[in-house]
């Protein structure tokens, strides 16, 4: 019965072959570490956000007079409403945590390099979409932080030359963030995740074309690949449940960790809270914004600081394979970058006293220098490594890559 149905479908739709080629038998390098788990986790969190979001939308009211109350209605009256909201608010942070770790993996192992540039660029688009979604979602509870966060960030567009003022007015649909803004943010907050899903699909199609990178930095020979199922179904699942333990520990026992106190006060357009801080995932970029004394310059620097990741495949000019594994200078720069981002993040939480501003400027300069010096650094590093004699492991890796190319795989 089932097999007849399957045969009927398979004549019309490549169901079995799709499942086989793209899921069960899809070849994956056997040497992947848990650093390769974060893509799967990001998919899981995306699903979680969409499901919890749709259920929240059944009770939420995008109206300045009702929004704050409707969130409390969800928290207090709707059965398990508190759970669904805490899933969603914690899920937003989890999403960024997972995505940033995914990016760190990619940077460390050089997974953005040829032929995976389009994966990296589609990933960059995903990052921008997630940031936009998170930013718009943060307005919806209509607390003080929601309001002033949106007020400040939309004001940033006012720095656009010539059309700044009109642009801000158009974005908000009002002279200040108001009912029109809340309504459109809600509409877009609901829409963008589905655009995101399409982008994820593109990201995955590209992945299945170029296949996963792996810690060695070069593509493995066919014999070193193993089928996705059962090896990676079980490994990804295990990773997912370990992630879930941490995630639910926050949801059930510290759910207000990612909700600012000031956001439990309804939005008041007449009074800015004493200490406004963006969500943790925007802090490094916020610190860059504040490091530049000029509004337009700050906004531009902040934008570039997010977009500059896209340039990585062009900036890394080394012909040695992979990322940090065999390249000590690249590795040092990687760690410097991670530390610099953490420093920027910390500065983002601080009231900008004199020392914060100074350190912020230094950290901003380091941030951009790492990217901009990479073309030279990677070349010089390569020359130095070759002069010193490449490590045997690397030579073997490169030799096998040459053999693979020669045999036309």
């Amino acid at each position: 019965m089932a097999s007849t149905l399957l045969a009927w479908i398979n004549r019309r739709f490549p169901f079995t072959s799709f499942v086989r080629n793209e899921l069960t038998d899809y070849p994956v390098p056997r040497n992947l570490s848990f650093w390769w788990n974060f893509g799967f986790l990001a998919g899981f969190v995306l699903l979680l956000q969409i499901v919890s979001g749709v259920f929240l939308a059944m009770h939420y009211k995008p109206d300045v007079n009702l929004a704050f109350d409707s969130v409390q209605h969800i928290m207090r009256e709707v059965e398990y409403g508190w759970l669904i909201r805490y899933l969603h608010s914690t899920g937003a942070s989890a999403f960024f945590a997972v995505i940033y770790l995914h990016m760190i993996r990619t940077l460390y192992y050089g997974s953005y390099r040829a032929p995976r540039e389009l994966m990296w660029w589609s990933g960059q688009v995903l990052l921008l979409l997630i940031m936009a979604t998170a930013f718009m979602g943060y307005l919806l509870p209509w607390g003080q932080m929601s309001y002033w966060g949106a007020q400040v960030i939309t004001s940033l567009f006012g720095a656009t030359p010539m059309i700044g003022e009109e642009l801000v007015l158009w974005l908000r649909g009002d002279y200040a963030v108001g009912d029109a803004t809340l309504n459109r943010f809600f509409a877009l907050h609901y829409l963008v995740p589905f655009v995101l899903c399409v982008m994820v699909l593109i990201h995955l199609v590209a992945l299945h074309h170029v296949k996963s990178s792996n810690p060695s930095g070069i593509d493995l020979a066919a014999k070193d690949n193993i089928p996705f199922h059962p090896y990676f179904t079980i490994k990804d699942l295990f990773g997912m449940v370990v992630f879930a333990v941490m995630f639910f520990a926050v949801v059930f026992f510290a759910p207000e960790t990612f909700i600012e106190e000031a956001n439990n006060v309804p939005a008041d357009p007449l009074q800015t809270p004493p200490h406004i801080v963006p969500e943790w995932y925007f802090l490094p970029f916020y610190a860059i914004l504040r490091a530049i004394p000029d509004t337009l310059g700050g906004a531009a620097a902040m934008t570039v600081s997010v977009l500059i990741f896209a340039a990585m495949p062009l900036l890394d000019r080394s012909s040695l394979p992979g990322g940090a594994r065999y390249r000590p200078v690249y590795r040092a720069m990687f760690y410097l970058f991670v530390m610099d981002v953490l420093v920027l993040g910390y500065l983002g939480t601080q009231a900008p006293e004199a020392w914060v501003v100074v350190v912020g400027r230094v950290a901003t300069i380091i941030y951009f220098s790492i990217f901009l010096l990479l073309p030279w650094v990677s070349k010089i590093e390569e020359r130095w490594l070759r002069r010193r004699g490449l490590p045997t492991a690397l030579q073997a890796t490169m030799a096998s890559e040459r053999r693979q190319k020669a045999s036309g795989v």
Partner: protein
Amino acid sequence: MRSLRVLSGVLLATTMMPVVMAAVLADVEIPSDEASLQRGAQLATSVCLGCHGFKYLRFGNLQALGFSDEQFDSLRAGQDLDAALDSYTPADVARDLYGVVPPDLSLMAKAREGGPHHVYTLLTSYYTDESGVTDNHLLPGVRMPDVLGYSSAATPGERTELERQALDVVAFLSWAADPKVEQRERLGYFVLGYLVLFAALLYVLKRRIWARLG
């Protein structure tokens, strides 16, 4: 240009801001036992409700605190079970009296840095100086009167009693801000227990499956 001014104003405000008041909040343990919550609810409905509302609570919600029927009836003073805990003083009257509308207290325990400790410290920081002026150490110039009478407590014993009252009120405020805490944590232990067990099973299974690769 207006929005730019707002922006630079806000950026400047954060720049100029002195590191948020170093005022130290009292380091007390906030009780969550039924007796404290009940006493706190009684104080809140008899004292705080005079000026503040708890608009996200309905009288029926207070039944969750385990009152006896008589206690509950005297607490709600004939109010409908579905009626919200609105302030006895209408907002416009309060504004005339105090110059501000006293903020709603439903979420107060989550709406200030330090949460319940902020409120406890506020209530127990009133003092009267030599010239007879009453003020507050935590929020100098606060427009809320010394409702518990802490500044006029004459003996350490009286003070201790008022501090206990403040603790009870704050316990109630914490509950009011997060009435699902008990349900949440109970479910939390269950879910985490399940996930740890499931993770252990998956781990063993993963080891077995990967062992096939030799």
